[in-house]
């Protein structure tokens, strides 16, 4: 079953991936935090500095709360399509054939993105930021495809990407009953969560086996919906031979860089083309592709996003949101802020190793921007009040039914009380925010791996594969300059001291009479964990028996960390069950009228093209190539060594045939989040008019409550894609392939 983008990545880390939004950040943030130490991964969320009193019940009546019909969002599943709503709002007669066509053109791209088929010969469109790793993977010696871009002259020049696959959603089967029945057979919160997960994965295996008998390209994944109130088996057709066809230069694909992430107006050609091949090495025939709209969309047009949003938290209680606001987010922001500042300081010194630090800084500041946006959203009283009004409505509806009251009557109080337990633990857990992830000190993270690895071996843990995997993960960490490790260790010790108190026995044992600064300096000066090679040697020779100065530190710290982690996990399991109860109540009252929270599985979201009020003026629905040049020239003087708005040579003097008034990026009110990157934006005829690549800064709080007042999905206009292929990149055969598909579509 799918907990996240990568197998068992713990929920806490998955949250962070979500945090990244749907944007270029998604890729980077996942990279940053996708290196959990071990299965018992850290509960990153709970950090606390200074107890804060926040009443669980805000005074709703002071706001003019308009309980929105779509506060729960518009990420509709394909097994419960909003047929009536589409008819009511768009006059659209969307029958099952329409939804099937919408579903089959869409793809899940790798483990983090979405994509779509855009021709009958397996041509795939996704974002440049989703393709970065693939581009790097097929770059040959002497090439720099990220910088120069890539265009296969003919299909035979298309380059196969190792390990990349795309998945098409073939069918959906409800398996709720089977999972629940297994879960109901056991007592205890943790046990029940475990049993459900195991059952889901058992069903997954069993169904995959059966499906493969029919067709070896099929693969089944059990998706948890409504916090476990529903389980659905999604059967995917997987295409495992995917080749790079075309990618623009990174300067176009990532125009505006990290700075412009979550920004609109925007001027980014965030696109890349791939092609799926069958097992005999021929381009797959894809009759279920989207035709290309050459006319594009206009303001107020109905548009639909079909893609795989990663995660949202829209269906919980008010007390949960407040905990998120007052503890989790604040302390994540604080932890990232400190790290961003330290990393920037080092980066600016332009010392050796600044590249690694710079990448890390980009990722950290990107996550920071996203988390701050969410925090801002939660600090907006109207948002909390709206959620509160929604919960009150549920309460009211609940008490109209005696049987429901009897079953769910205590759920609100239970959730509130659980938040109090979380608060009680929050202080200690805060010391470990982002501990054991790749944004921390390399030395400490390696030490934690080393500690875990040694203990598994000592305890005679038998799964050699798992042990090897841990070792592999540990070895994959890039080295940091010693100075950076030192400042990160110092920061972590300060955070520990603040959370645990100076007199805490673990803290005293760690410091061993030294000051934080001198301990950190000593560790960095003498440890062999500064680089992977030294670490590997130590792993073989026996990490815990070595004289490395970091051994006593991690030996004191790790038990505390693992205990904290187990407590966090236990609270999390309890919360998951309560939330599932709550979801079950909602479901009993409203059914599928409210779509489930995002689950990195296929959804369709409706909206309209339209600008919005911003920055004291109005953001247009579209931008143009003129704006690309405005930005290039406007930012050019800021930095002699280049800016994120620089253009590559061939764009500096574009051919006259490229109309600069061509719409480049556009915004619409569709409900999207991280994972939607690369999703097609379709018109009512299911022609592709845009390529989703980001959400604006106003959309960040949509993770908690959906609003389309100023929140917008940002896409690349397909007219810009076609114009640049044709006039700038000279990709004639692609243009022909795309437009012929479109013509055939229209003639039908």
């Amino acid at each position, binding site marked *: 079953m799918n907990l996240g983008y990568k197998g068992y990545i713990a929920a806490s880390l998955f949250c962070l991936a979500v945090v990244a939004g749907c944007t270029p950040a998604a890729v980077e943030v996942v990279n940053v935090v996708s290196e959990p130490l071990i299965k018992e991964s850290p509960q990153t969320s709970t950090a606390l500095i200074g107890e804060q009193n926040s009443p669980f019940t805000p005074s709703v009546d002071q706001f003019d709360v308009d309980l929105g019909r779509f506060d729960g969002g518009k990420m509709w599943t394909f097994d419960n399509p909003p047929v009536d709503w589409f008819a009511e709002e768009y006059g659209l007669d969307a029958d099952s054939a329409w939804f099937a066509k919408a579903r089959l053109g869409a793809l899940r791209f790798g483990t983090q993105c979405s994509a779509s088929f855009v021709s009958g010969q397996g041509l795939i469109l996704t974002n440049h930021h989703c393709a970065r790793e693939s581009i790097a993977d097929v770059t040959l010696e002497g090439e720099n495809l990220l910088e120069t871009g890539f265009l296969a002259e003919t299909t035979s020049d298309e380059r196969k990407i190792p390990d990349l696959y795309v998945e098409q959603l073939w069918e959906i089967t409800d398996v709720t009953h089977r999972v629940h029945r297994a879960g109901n057979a056991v007592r205890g919160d943790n046990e029940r969560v475990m049993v459900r997960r195991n059952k889901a994965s058992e069903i997954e295996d069993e169904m995959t086996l059966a499906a493969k008998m029919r067709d070896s390209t099929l693969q089944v994944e059990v998706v948890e919906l409504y916090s476990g109130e529903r389980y659905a088996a999604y059967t995917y057709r997987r295409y495992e031979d995917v080749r790079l066809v075309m990618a623009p230069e990174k300067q176009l694909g990532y125009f505006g860089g990290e*700075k412009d992430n979550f920004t609109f107006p925007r001027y980014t050609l965030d696109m890349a083309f791939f092609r799926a091949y069958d097992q005999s090495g021929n381009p797959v025939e894809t009759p279920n592709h989207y035709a290309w709209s050459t006319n594009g969309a206009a303001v107020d047009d109905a548009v639909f996003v079909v893609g795989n949003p990663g995660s949202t938290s829209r269906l919980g209680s008010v007390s949960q949101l407040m905990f998120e606001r007052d503890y989790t987010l604040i302390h994540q922001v604080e932890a990232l802020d400190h790290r961003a500042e330290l990393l920037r300081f080092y980066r600016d010194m332009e010392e050796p190793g600044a590249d690694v630090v710079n990448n890390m800084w980009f990722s950290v500041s990107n996550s920071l921007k996203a988390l701050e946006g969410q925090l801002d959203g939660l600090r907006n009283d109207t948002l909390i009040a709206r959620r509160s009004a929604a919960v009150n409505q549920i309460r009211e509806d609940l008490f109209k039914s005696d049987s429901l009251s009897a079953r769910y009557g205590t759920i609100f109080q239970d959730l509130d009380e659980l938040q109090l337990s979380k608060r009680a633990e929050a202080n200690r857990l805060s010391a470990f925010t982002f501990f054991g992830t790749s944004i921390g000190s390399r030395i400490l993270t390696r030490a934690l791996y080393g500690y875990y690895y040694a203990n598994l071996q000592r305890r005679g843990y038998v799964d050699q594969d798992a042990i090897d995997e841990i070792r592999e993960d540990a070895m994959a960490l890039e080295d940091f300059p010693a100075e950076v490790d030192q400042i990160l260790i110092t920061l972590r010790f300060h955070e520990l001291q603040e959370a645990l108190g100076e007199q805490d026995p673990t803290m005293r044992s760690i410091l061993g009479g030294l000051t934080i600064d001198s301990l950190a300096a000593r560790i960095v000066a003498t440890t062999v964990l500064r680089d992977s090679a030294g670490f590997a040697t130590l792993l073989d020779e026996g990490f815990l028996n070595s004289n490395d100065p970091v051994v006593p530190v991690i030996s004191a710290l790790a038990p505390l960390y693992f205990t904290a982690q187990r407590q966090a996990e236990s609270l999390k399991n309890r919360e998951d069950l309560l939330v599932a109860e709550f979801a079950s109540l909602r479901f009993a009252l409203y059914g599928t009228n409210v779509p489930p929270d995002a689950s990195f599985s296929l959804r369709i979201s409706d909206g309209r093209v339209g600008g919005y009020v911003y920055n004291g003026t109005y953001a*247009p629905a579209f931008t143009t190539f003129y704006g690309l040049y405005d930005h290039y020239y406007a*930012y050019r003087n800021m930095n002699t060594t280049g800016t994120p708005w620089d253009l590559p040579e061939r764009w500096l003097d574009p051919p006259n045939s490229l109309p600069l008034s061509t719409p480049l990026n556009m915004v619409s009110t569709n409900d999207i989040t991280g994972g939607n990157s690369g999703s097609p934006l379709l018109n009512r005829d299911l022609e592709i008019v845009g390529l989703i690549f980001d959400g604006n800064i106003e959309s960040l709080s949509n993770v908690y409550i959906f609003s389309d007042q100023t929140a917008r999905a940002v896409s690349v206009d397909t007219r810009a894609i076609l114009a640049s292929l044709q006039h700038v990149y000279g990709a004639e055969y692609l243009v022909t392939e795309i437009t012929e598909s479109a013509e055939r579509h229209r003639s039908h």
Partner: protein
Amino acid sequence: MKNCSILWGLIVFTLFPSVQARQITTAASTSDSLLMSHIWDFQANAGTAEGVGLPDTDWVENALLGTLQLPGCAAALVSANGLAVTSAACLRSLDTWIRPGDTLFVADELSQEHRLEGLKVRQLSGIKKIENPGDTFPNVEPDMQSQIHKGRGHGSYWKYSWRVYDDVRLVFIPPIELENFGDEDSVYPRYAMDFALFRVYDKNDQLLDTESYFAWNDRPPRYRERLYATVFSKDESFTRVTILDRFDYNGTVSPSFTTMYGILDLHHSHGAMSSWALPAELKSLIAGSDLSTALNFSVAGECAEMGVAIIDIDMEILGISFDNAHTQEGLRCVGMSTAGILSLLRSPLNAKNIVEELAEQSRWQNR
């Protein structure tokens, strides 16, 4: 800022009737304390001459003498022949503004210039340190005025003498669609051509002959460049030191300046029914200019007045103030760049004489 208040202008003109006309401007008489009294760092309202890089007293005096006052606004002299630049809104908001209305006006020949009836401007003619701020001075010449200014934070008082001119002729004003592009107010990034050129004539119908003016420079302001603007306020005058920097906005950072490309971007983005829509002839006017030219920019801190020259350390004018924008960091002064002005005058309008007059004065051009 569309509603340039004309209030204080009137107050100055009425509360300080002309009293005296002795020319007393010398470096010796003004002394270093004039320099000190003029420094106003945008950050701290404080600083030292060295700290903020004001060169010397002569520099300050020149900046004062090159600055004209008109009701509610300032303007900057940009040629030895009385040509001055200000914000277009400063002229259009005048009670006496009738012609040429909202349309484009270009007078590339002196004979085409259009007299702005009822408009009076004044230029500083002298500064003198005085001991007693209560002193009054006899009125000597009818076209002279004087006013007591407080020194900034030094308890000193200065008597400013002004010469008033009432023959002011319009040389250039853009069409209102470009001046108010997008009907945006208090916004940056911005894409407005909010400037106008006029010429001051003396009482003998001759072009104002002045040694004090700002040399024209049509380079874009540089990122992190220190810039200066000299302002006459109600009872004081000061030179503000500011910086061309960027600020956090909308999840990204602002550009240090915008370009003419942006006008066409917004025109096409917003569409034909919007406030950014340009009639065909104006669209081609813009399209005919060098689109990469700097248009608007913003500097740290609020601008005290519109039409104020924004100058570099060499006292070359790089732009004029025309609005304050609301930003996350509070108000920031928005300027129209000289580069943008020239790009419009040059290729699409081909206003040869005006361009030549500006270019002749440009030390930068002659280098």
